[in-house]
């Protein structure tokens, strides 16, 4: 792995996105719009908006980066550029780390936009600072990116890739505790939720946006997210084959 090739890969991915102005606009505007929508759907129930909307600010980048990365990597596989790269002096880790840098940067922009709208304009509270929510959002985006890289290996078409989103992300959103407290779920579902990475991502955000002291639980949550992301990246590296049938 070399810094030069990793940086070149990150720059290349950013160049690709820079040419796609509409994607950039959608990336920045859509989460903000959804948050505004949620605010008015829950009009008159600011308590519920705070409970759902505040953690949601840190979850948007997770969902979006999952989708964007899985499609980008699928394209790399189907257009032959991945095979081409595999014949060049480029380590698999250069490619994966390059993706992480580029999408991490995009996630930071997206998180900044949604946090400004949520915490500065819509009156959400972040007792430990909106910056903490932003940092957690970037960590979650990298988790989404890692899972997206991994599942792209199991999609042959873009139709399949987009459907991995409802298949893999929605169940995690339902079980993570965002809509219903995990302790109020059926024991089996609660048990399953312990095994899902988004549970820890949500838990960290819930702590960061509530008044309770942070403590070591937040660190453990972040650690769990990091382990899940690194695990997914390691598995994704195994799916990048120099030789194929």
């Amino acid at each position: 792995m070399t810094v030069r090739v990793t940086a070149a890969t990150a720059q290349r991915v950013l160049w690709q996105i820079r040419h796609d102005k509409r994607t950039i606009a959608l990336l920045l505007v859509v989460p903000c719009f959804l948050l505004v929508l949620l605010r008015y759907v829950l009009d008159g129930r600011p308590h519920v908006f705070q409970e759902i909307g505040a953690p949601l600010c840190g979850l948007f980048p997770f969902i979006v980066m999952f989708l964007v990365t899985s499609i980008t990597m699928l394209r790399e596989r189907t257009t032959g550029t991945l095979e081409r790269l595999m014949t060049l002096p480029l380590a698999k880790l250069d490619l994966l780390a390059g993706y992480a840098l580029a999408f991490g940067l995009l996630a930071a922009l997206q998180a900044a936009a949604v946090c400004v709208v949520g915490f500065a304009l819509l009156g959400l509270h972040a007792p430990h600072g909106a910056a903490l929510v932003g940092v957690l959002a970037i960590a979650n985006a990298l988790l989404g990116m890692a899972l997206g890289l991994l599942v792209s290996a199991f999609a042959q078409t873009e139709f399949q890739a987009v459907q991995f989103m409802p298949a893999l992300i929605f169940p995690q959103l339902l079980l993570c505790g965002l809509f219903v407290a995990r302790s109020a779920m059926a024991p089996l579902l609660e048990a399953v939720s312990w095994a899902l990475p988004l549970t820890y991502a949500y838990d960290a955000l819930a702590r960061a946006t509530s008044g309770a002291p942070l403590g070591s639980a937040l660190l453990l949550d972040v650690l769990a997210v990091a382990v899940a992301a690194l695990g997914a990246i390691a598995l994704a590296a195994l799916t990048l084959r120099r030789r194929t049938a």
Partner: protein
Amino acid sequence: MVGNAIEVEELRVVRGGREVLHEVSLDVPAGLVTGLLGPSGCGKTTLMRAIVGVQIVAGGTVRVLGLPAGDPALRSRVGRHARERVGYVTQAPSVYGDLTVLENLRYFAAIVEASPDRVAEVLDAVGLGDRTGQLTGSLSGGQRARVSLASALLGRPELLVLDEPTVGLDPVLRADLWKMFHALADEGTTLLVSSHVMDEAAECDQLLLMRDGRLLEQTTPQALRDRTGEDDLGRAFLSVIEAAER
């Protein structure tokens, strides 16, 4: 230069449960332009994939520049200013459609450590010096293929494996490319160039004739003409096929 850049022995490849290369053995001499000719679907691309080491093989050996095909040492440059070892251009252009021509080249240049001057040089060599700012996806198929070719030239590879690089090109441009291939060979580069058009056989120093996953003959254009008594290389190929089936 003497010796072989590529040595293939009894190579067998199975794809989708079907054997597509049946015990192919051949040598590609170093420093020459070798044409790999045969109809579509005869196994040219699979053979090239095996040579650059991206194809899973069922049997046999492939040695490239003295190393097993796909050896990590073939991907890395030897020493600070050494050449890249193997360059591969796939039939479908493997470049990023959502980058400009220059951005594509700059990315590949960063990987193989080629200078900005080298980028300008290869773009001129493939006749795209005036298209650098254009999005690659908006180019014609032939132009995209040349972006792909240019990116493979960046690292001055010792061996260039080109899968149908001249398909669909303007005849003038095609002639220019063949001139460039020979100029590269004169500098010591080994080229393996596939084509399904027999006209192009005349441009090669050496010929490998393939059909149905088998190597029919390893020859030169002149030897093929002499042996078959046919001046036209297309007809000569036909008589080789007829002789093989007899």
